């Protein structure tokens, strides 16, 4: 069972899996296209749709005036309209929706909309927003002990500035939705969303109807990575609005350029740090101001900012700390969730601070890292006490398994022999907390039906987006009832079967939904045991289980087959359905004092990255990334390995070639796949080795199998520092700027910075 294949992969490889764009359309389906703001900031003086409406096949053009409910889609803070009213705040902000018989007609009409705007100054950088006191919300500060004391205890104090750029999600499937009007004003929305309930609730608010009139159905997503947590909502709501008004099915799949221009990305961060070390290299004090470029509306920015603070110390114990995050409001598309959710931005800064200290002290970076790794019972700056800490174990296992000492020797030798190429190395420990940091979101439900032929249908609130959560759900039920996987079907994610879902996010989807499913399975089992008792001579202390389609008593197979048991239960009018609820125990967080126990557990790991830099051309190759990762007890190694490799490569992309670029007017320049590059098959590490740390696992994780979605992304940060290490080998005068991504441009400029 441990290497059960992704249950969807047969459909995927045959091209038979159905995404929103592939749904067979109902007769009379209309196609929608968004007309968006051509400038980043300004007052709308006049819009003229006359010419656009006259195009044959254009059915209607909707804007904010057509909204029956509230023109408001903000999730955390109500500060974002569905359609702009009098003012536009970012280039790409939706203003109107063209509904036409075909997409081609809608595109023609879009070019004919005339808009008259009074342009206002656009703020694009966090610095400018900060100076103008343009914020999304009040800043947040976490503190631990007294940093002024900490700096007094420090022998070495270093300060510095860092920048990490945004990141385009580049899910291969763009944002997509399709709404079908049903009878009595009810609507069914097919959406490519991580948050079906968000879509439902927001549509209800905009359409001015109760939530129960809206059914949201999600089959699967063609990638999401956070980009469809909050930002799948507007498109779904727009098709719902159009379907409500026209009483016709309406489909909208964003064209790639529209998607890139209109949607938010990973938040760029500017940060300034101050770090103090004692003579033993222990971090005595660490202060950071984080300036988050939030974009034009809150979206999930406050929650992302919060996670930056939670992960500001990465895998290290810091004796005194003070971090403040400012969510700066700019005239860019609202930035949003992206794998890691602000954590990577926080971790980058402490790695930069350590790298800077190491350079100034002329010692290997790893000496400082190693001196400060978290130990059991250390306190995080947010008050949680670290338990079952595995970071040192992964760190030392990396050093031994991959023979760091030998590697360092070879590297020195290589660099002394080669003029045109230099190698660099880095170690990157990661510690990532699992749970939504907003405690109330940590719950889920599962619905299980055992049909009277013995086959099973499972619904949960988990959305399948490539992470193979459906396979994990299937494994849980099939394993629990000892059945062949073909007997269990995982249903679509649908708000009529599972209400009030939290989005599939925070790496916690399998934990939350899986635990709810296990609960449902257990309750069915309890009822079935009563039926077993009538069929077999058992008593209360006997251990009843299921395996290979048969009932087991005290581990011994009986003659009672699964189908016969179910048939009997059905005849006896026993309920064969269960709807269970799970809420993560123990977690809490008090924002008033910024202390608590927000995480169910942490995931640990260490990556060793080796790169080769071409010192003629400024290009580089990643030779290897060698990892020891804490999976807990992985319930599916094939799937979990895919998450580690995929997360790592996405992190490497963020740190190397993926460069978001806006001009000063707020226009996205990296607005297509030709201008924005993500890793291809040739740019990934030549070798990725992943070894699982042997542990007992934690009970809070589903089947002791730890969450694996986000943490590996942060291994990618190691690539940045490995490249810096190689540049320094060529050019000792390199100033070690912390300005990600490390594009070939920055490498070449670094190689020849004050070169002599």
């Amino acid at each position, binding site marked *: 069972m441990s290497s059960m*294949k992704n249950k*969807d*992969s*047969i459909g*995927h*490889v*045959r*091209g038979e*899996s159905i995404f929103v*764009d592939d749904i067979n359309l109902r007769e009379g389906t209309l196609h929608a296209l968004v007309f968006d703001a051509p400038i980043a900031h300004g007052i709308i003086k006049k819009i003229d749709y006359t010419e656009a409406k006259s195009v044959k096949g254009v059915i209607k053009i909707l804007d904010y005036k057509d909204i029956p409910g509230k023109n408001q889609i903000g999730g955390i803070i109500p500060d974002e309209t569905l359609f702009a009213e009098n003012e536009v705040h970012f280039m790409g902000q939706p203003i109107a929706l063209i509904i036409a018989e075909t997409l*081609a007609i809608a*595109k023609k009409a879009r070019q004919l909309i005339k808009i008259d705007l009074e342009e206002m100054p656009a703020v694009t950088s966090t610095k400018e927003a900060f100076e103008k006191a343009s914020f999304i919300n009040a800043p947040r500060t976490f503190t631990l002990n007294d940093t002024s004391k900490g700096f007094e205890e420090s022998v070495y104090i270093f300060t510095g500035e860092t920048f990490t750029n945004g990141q385009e*999600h*580049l*899910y*291969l*499937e763009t944002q997509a939705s399709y709404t079908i009007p049903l009878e009595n004003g009810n609507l069914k929305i097919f959406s490519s969303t991580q948050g079906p309930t968000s879509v439902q609730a927001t549509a209800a608010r905009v359409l001015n109807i109760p939530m129960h009139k809206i059914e949201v159905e999600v089959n*699967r997503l*063609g*990638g*999401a*990575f956070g980009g469809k947590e909050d930002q799948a909502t507007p498109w779904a709501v727009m098709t719902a609005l159009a379907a409500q008004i026209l009483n016709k099915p309406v489909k909208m799949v964003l*064209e*790639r350029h529209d998607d890139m221009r209109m949607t938010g990305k990973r938040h760029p961060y500017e940060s300034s740090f101050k770090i103090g070390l004692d003579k033993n290299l222990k971090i005595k004090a660490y202060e950071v101001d984080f300036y988050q470029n939030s974009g034009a509306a809150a979206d999930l920015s406050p929650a992302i900012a919060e996670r930056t603070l939670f992960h500001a110390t990465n895998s290290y114990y810091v004796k005194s700390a003070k971090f403040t995050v400012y969510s700066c409001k700019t005239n860019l598309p609202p930035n949003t969730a992206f794998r890691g959710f602000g954590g990577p931005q926080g971790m980058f800064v402490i790695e930069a601070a350590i790298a800077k200290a190491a350079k100034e002290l002329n010692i290997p970076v790893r000496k400082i890292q190693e001196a400060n790794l978290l130990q059991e019972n250390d306190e995080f700056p947010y008050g949680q006490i670290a338990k079952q800490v595995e970071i040192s174990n992964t760190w030392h296992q990396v050093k031994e398994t991959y023979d760091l000492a030998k590697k360092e020797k070879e590297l020195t030798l290589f660099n002394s022999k080669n*003029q*045109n190429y230099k190698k660099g190395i880095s170690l990157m420990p990661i510690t990532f907390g699992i749970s939504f940091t907003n405690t109330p979101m940590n719950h889920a439900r599962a619905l299980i039906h055992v049909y009277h032929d013995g086959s099973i249908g499972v619904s949960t609130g988990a959305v399948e*987006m*490539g992470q193979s959560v459906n396979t994990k759900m299937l494994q849980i039920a099939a394993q629990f009832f000892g059945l062949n996987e073909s007997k269990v079907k995982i249903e679509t994610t649908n708000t009529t079967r599972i209400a009030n879902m939290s989005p599939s996010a925070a790496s916690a989807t399998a934990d939350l939904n899986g635990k709810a499913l296990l609960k449902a399975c257990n309750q069915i089992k309890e009822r079935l045991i009563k039926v077993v008792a009538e069929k077999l001579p058992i008593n209360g202390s006997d251990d009843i289980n299921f395996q290979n389609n048969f009932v087991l008593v005290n581990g011994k197979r009986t003659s009672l087959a699964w189908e016969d048991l179910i048939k009997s239960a059905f005849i006896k009018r026993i309920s064969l359905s269960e709807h269970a609820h799970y809420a993560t125990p123990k977690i809490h967080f008090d924002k008033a004092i910024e202390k608590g126990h927000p995480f169910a557990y942490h995931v640990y790991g260490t990556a060793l990255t080796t790169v080769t830099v071409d010192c*003629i*051309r*400024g*290009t580089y190759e990643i030779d290897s990334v060698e990892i020891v990762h804490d999976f807990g007890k992985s319930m599916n190694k094939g799937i979990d*390995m*895919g998450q580690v*490799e*995929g997360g*790592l*490569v*996405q992190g490497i992309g963020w740190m190397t*070639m993926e*460069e978001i670029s806006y001009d000063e007017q707020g226009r996205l*320049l*990296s607005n*297509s*796949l*030709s201008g924005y*590059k*993500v*890793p*291809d*098959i*040739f*740019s*990934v590490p030549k070798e990725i080795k992943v070894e699982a740390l042997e542990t007992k696992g934690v009970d809070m994780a589903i089947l002791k199998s730890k969450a694996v979605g986000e943490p590996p992304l942060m291994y990618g940060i190691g690539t940045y520092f490995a490249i810096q290490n190689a540049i320094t080998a060529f050019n000792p005068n390199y100033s070690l700027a912390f300005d990600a991504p490390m594009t*070939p*441009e920055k490498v*070449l*400029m670094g190689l*020849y910075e004050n*070169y002599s």
Partner: protein
Amino acid sequence: MIEFILNDKKVQTEAKSGMSLLHFIREEQGLKGTKAGCKEGDCGACTVLSGSLHKDNKLHYVSLTSCLTPLANAHGKHIVTVEGINLTNKLNIAQQSMHNNFATQCGYCTPGFVISLTGLSLREKPVTYTDSLNALSGNICRCTGYKSIEKAAKEVTEKLQKKNHHDSLNWLVKNKFIPDYFTDIPARLREIKNEQSFTEGVLVSGGTDLYVKHADALLDQEIQKASDFVPDKILFSNTKCKIGAGVNVTNLMENCEFARYFPYVKSHLKLVSSEPIRNMASIGGNFVNASPIGDMSIFFLALNSSLYIQSSIGAIREILLKDFFLDYKKMDLQDHEFIQHISFEIPDQNTYFNFEKVSKRTHLDIASVNTALNIKLNDNIIKETHIAVGGVAAIPKYLNQTNTYLKGKKLTVSTIIAAQDIMQKEISPISDVRGTETYKRLLARQLFYAHFLKLFPNLFKLKDLVA
């Protein structure tokens, strides 16, 4: 009427010839396995195979991005989508290998990868693991990190080692690479008459540039097919090589005689876009695109090539490629003219050629700076050079003054450093998404030096040049 075989079905359609093949497949034919990811040839989710009969009566398949392919170019071909490689109740080898290795996560890019790997199996020549990676050079996956896909590619390659190349199609059918209807395709293709396309409308060759921006506009238009009258042969005489403007980049890479004179052509041209795009993009198309950073423009500028331009009445004029580019996206070409072929002098054994390109991502990316050098030596004396640099001016830049300076000089460090200084005066890069001006100047210097470091490693050391 456009006529072709789509999977196992014959298609005869009156749809507009300018419609993209992707649109036709998904919207007109309802085959939803082929995905639209970017509609600019940069993701490979829409990859299909195109099979055509060659003179040897053998079927030859190449991969294409259907988003950039005009429907017109499907005429007379066997177009294969993922639906067309599915076997009944089992997976084909490419699919099985992807499945075995967890090489699919969200599944959106997957049909494209499967098609590319199946295309690999249809190659006439024996394939290596490197070939399999090249076959995937146009496919982007955002989920897996590619390691599982590499394993799948390796598995496919290994299985292909046993292939019987004398009876390729039957072997592939028997070994579950393709469905059995493929064996009837040659006969069925022979029945399709070659039909002259429209004589009006925009002239389209591979479509790889035009369709990036104009696919919507061409959706309901008729086009002229370049292959109806633009030559697509590579010919060699005693001193000259003549290349039809319709020759695509893959043709050039795989031409044995060309490789004799340019032994590094494969590694050089591997830096040009991706395999499916190279299968489509014509040399002539890259010239008339007039991009200041066009890879083929730079390559052939350094060969001091001549263009033969044909007018609508059939008159032919000759012009040096370096005189063809006038200003940003402006060239010496009238509306009624097209490039017929390109010609250059075959290099002798004292002539050395090198091509360099640096972009954000090494493959399938537009260069920040690209450059090519052709240098003819007499002992240690430079008889002649032709150097071109892209991305540093409004046009692909032929370095007139630098070339003039180098003529007759001794090939030494000081000569090259002095020449580099002259180059810096000739170029005028601007800051844009491909880099700042400062970077492009530094990169141009480095790549200029790279030519000499690569061609004459015994004469030059990096330190001596940059210190």
